[in-house]
């Protein structure tokens, strides 16, 4: 197999975001994830910069790379103009491509994310869409969303939306030819292949655990068994 470091070099987010990190730790100091999780972006950058294949493989299979919130606050503050957040994104992409994401609890959550977001984009043309955003899955959306979801057509009409309607406007129906374009883009640029890979690997885990697809979705969406938090 090709070296992991060489595979990372094929991702322009990696090559464009890492030029001689001095390990000052500014990224960790500013990082919202480092405060919440047992997470240190400085160490991640140190590992990839070392080109140590064993350590990079461990990283790709770890919980660690899934802790970042991609706010990219690190990018603003890095004195060397590096972007640790984009390096993490390159690591996550490679982890999924190689199937390593399945080795970690947080990585396995990609199944649910793919399911939710892939469906929304390909079926409706939106990343988030009111008909698939349910109060029982997102209770913090509040009592007001519970009410809004129950009266979706009426509330959106009151606010001037064009929910599922023809022509322009908020929440319009995206025409079929445009959804077809999105599907063709997914097929050509690798999104379909990654989604298929994640589905295949996740199905194997679900089968081993004796879970249906829905049960497995529920598990990765709701369960946390490990302690991921920053204990300091």
């Amino acid at each position, binding site marked *: 197999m090709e070296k992991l470091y060489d595979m990372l070099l094929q991702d322009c987010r990696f090559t464009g975001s890492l030029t001689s990190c001095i390990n000052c730790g500014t990224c960790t100091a500013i990082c919202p994830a480092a405060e919440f999780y047992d997470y240190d972006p400085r160490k991640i950058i140190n590992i990839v910069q070392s080109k140590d294949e064993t350590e990079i493989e461990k990283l790709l299979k770890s919980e660690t790379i*899934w802790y970042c919130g991609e706010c990219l606050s690190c990018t*603003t503050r890095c004195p060397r103009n590096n972007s640790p957040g984009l390096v993490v994104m390159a690591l996550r992409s490679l982890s999924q491509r190689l199937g390593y994401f399945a080795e970690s609890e*947080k990585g396995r*959550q990609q199944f649910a994310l*793919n399911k939710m977001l892939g469906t929304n984009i390909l079926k409706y043309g939106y990343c988030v869409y009111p008909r698939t955003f349910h109060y029982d899955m997102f209770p913090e959306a509040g009592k*007001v969303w519970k009410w809004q979801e129950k009266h979706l057509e009426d509330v959106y009409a009151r606010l001037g939306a064009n929910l599922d309607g023809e022509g322009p406007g908020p929440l319009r129906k995206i025409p079929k030819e445009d959804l077809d374009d999105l599907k063709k883009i*997914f*097929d050509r640029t690798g*999104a379909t292949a990654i989604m298929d890979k994640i589905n295949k690997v996740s199905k194997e885990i679900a089968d081993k655990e004796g879970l249906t697809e829905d049960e497995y979705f529920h598990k990765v969406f709701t369960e946390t068994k490990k302690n991921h938090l920053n204990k300091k």
Partner: protein
Amino acid sequence: MIYEGKKKIWSEYQKDIPDDHYFYARSCIRQMFFTASEQAFLEITRKLMGKDIFETEHHTTCGGIAYHCDAIPQETSMTIIARQFALMKKYGYENFVCSCITSFGLYNETLETWRRFPEVEAKVKEDLWESCHLEFAKPKFLAHTCDLIYKYRERIASMAKYRLVNVKTGRPLRVVEHIGCHYSKMFPSKGFGGAEYPYVLVGMVESWGGEIIDYPERRHCCGFGFRQYFIQSDRGYSLANTYKKFESMEPYEPDMIITNCPGCTYFMDRWQYVIAETQGKTYGGKGHGIPVLTYEEVAGLVLGYDPWDLGLQTHQVGSEPLLDKMGIKYDPAKKYLGVNGKFIGEPEKSPC
């Protein structure tokens, strides 16, 4: 004492964008949770300012949330974005304005990637043609919708029916401004005022009579975190970050919060509700939360729009304390009505 150099440089920084003729791309989150804000933006820009802001139903999501949840590859998001830009050209425009901050960050990231890696741009061009048969184009100018409202802020002020002033005390309202991370943290020069001292919302608040609060966690992320919110078991991350911001701003007694990112508006509104529901704590005084508004909603209130036409009833934190301070007349009985006064029930009572 010498005025802080860095602050001075950025406070005077103005990016160069035209004030008219834009191809407009909507935001998934803003359409869904702050629907009337996008309509207010179009009303203000098209009808009040007389600007040409073009929309077609054929544009789609930019894929930004999926990209930042690492659910789609960069090549996919870049090609979807190339398709949006191609539509801009097809309809005869060269300036692009988007409503979403995640999109704005990603459009900038994509353009920067194409600039630095011409071979990537060439590949996207080919992928776009093979998938959609559309001609590749790049915008001459890229703006966020808040940039345009910022540009028009003095004209809005000149038409104001209300100001960000407490009508009972005559004092300017104390305002927290929250800038979405992806507005300028990646590319400071792409935002008015840069990343540390962004001026885009400050300028609006000052022009409309308010006073900005500086507080320690002012630049801290709202806590969205993409996958850290969409996965239920990860939401502690999102809540903890919002909590940190509210604990930090509380001593400064803000009257309201204004944001330029629809995600930030949602999280700072909804997590206040969760904190109130679970901990019984509210941050706005007298058992109320701090109203969190989009800049379109604030502009709309200043211009005298009805709060319920602006959609403030779909926020979880009640906006009435703010409306009362500004002296805005509103009918509480109409808050939750549908079109033509249709009664459609009401949400359960909010703890904030």
